[in-house]
């Protein structure tokens, strides 16, 4: 069987990474997201699993989009400390994803390894209404998954949960002890 090495074929590895068109249409994204939600809903039994499935989708996106962002924007300084990394996510990255910055970034008063990212109006939840029997289901778990993907892949192991607070959608980021140890080690030097 003659392989295709005789022909000059451009593979996906040759295509450019730069964005060709403008931003993605909100309605298109909403349609895609609603399909994702329905797909997950048909395969789970309870709310926690549904949120986990959405978070998995988000992780899938998160690990890839960080590198893509660095390449497209020609950035070559990585973030190595915790606070600059969180600020980077809140401002630059949120702008890259949703074209605006997240509203608040806060640290828990007592526990130093818990941070909150608060958004008044989450893009993902814009077209979604939660029926009464689903209680505290929150589809922004998808965004939580993206955040978790980004942080875990760049070396800040953590867990991200979402819940709805009066101030808006709140993502609660809990960092692993190894991250806090490394931070204090770097602080000391």
């Amino acid at each position, binding site marked *: 069987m003659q392989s295709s090495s005789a022909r000059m074929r451009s593979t996906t*590895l040759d295509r450019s990474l730069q964005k060709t068109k403008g931003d993605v249409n909100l309605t298109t994204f909403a349609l895609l997201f609603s399909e994702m939600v329905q797909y997950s809903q048909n395969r789970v039994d309870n709310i926690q699993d549904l949120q986990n499935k959405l978070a998995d989708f988000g992780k*899938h996106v998160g*690990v890839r989009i*960080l*590198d893509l962002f660095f390449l497209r924007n020609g*950035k070559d300084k990585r973030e*190595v400390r915790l606070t600059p990394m969180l600020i980077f996510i809140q401002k630059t990255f949120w702008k890259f994803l949703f074209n605006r910055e997240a509203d608040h970034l806060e640290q828990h008063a007592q526990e130093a390894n818990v941070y909150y990212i608060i958004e008044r109006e989450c893009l993902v939840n814009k077209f979604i209404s939660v029926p009464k029997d689903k209680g505290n289901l929150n589809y922004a778990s998808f965004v939580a998954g993206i955040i978790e993907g980004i942080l875990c*892949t760049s070396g800040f192991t953590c867990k991200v949960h979402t819940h709805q607070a009066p101030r808006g959608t709140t993502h609660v980021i809990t960092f692993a002890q190894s991250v806090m140890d490394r931070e204090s080690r770097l602080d000391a030097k």
Partner: protein
Amino acid sequence: MTSSSSSSNYYFVIVGHADQVVYEIELGGTTGQIAPTTDNRHLNQFIAHAALDLVDEAMWRNSTTYLKQVDKFNEWIVSAYVTAGGLRFLFLYEHLPRTGEDGLKNFLTEIYETYVKLLLNPFYIPDKPIRSGAFDKKIQTIARKWIL
């Protein structure tokens, strides 16, 4: 048994988050050279693995992606490139390639681009070994362009 090669041989490896080999390739080699023995291969892997500690140390102090020379073993020099996603590219050489440090940096940056294109494939699971023929060919093309 051949003595350590004095040819312009290079060894490139991509190390994943769990310190596993995601991809490795040997490049270069002058004509007339006997094919690298298994000793050489094991030595390369050993040197790269030993350099990982130093890379880890350097990557948390330095926020640049390209860390020039992190380690030296006898006459082998190890250069590292750390991606935003925490992946480490290690490049072993005895003598700088003909294009120098800049050529090496460009080589690593282009490999990074190619890797991200591979990563965007939803069927590729991050941190799993890369077994794509197209990727091999692309790396060799980039190597010919920048360092060979």
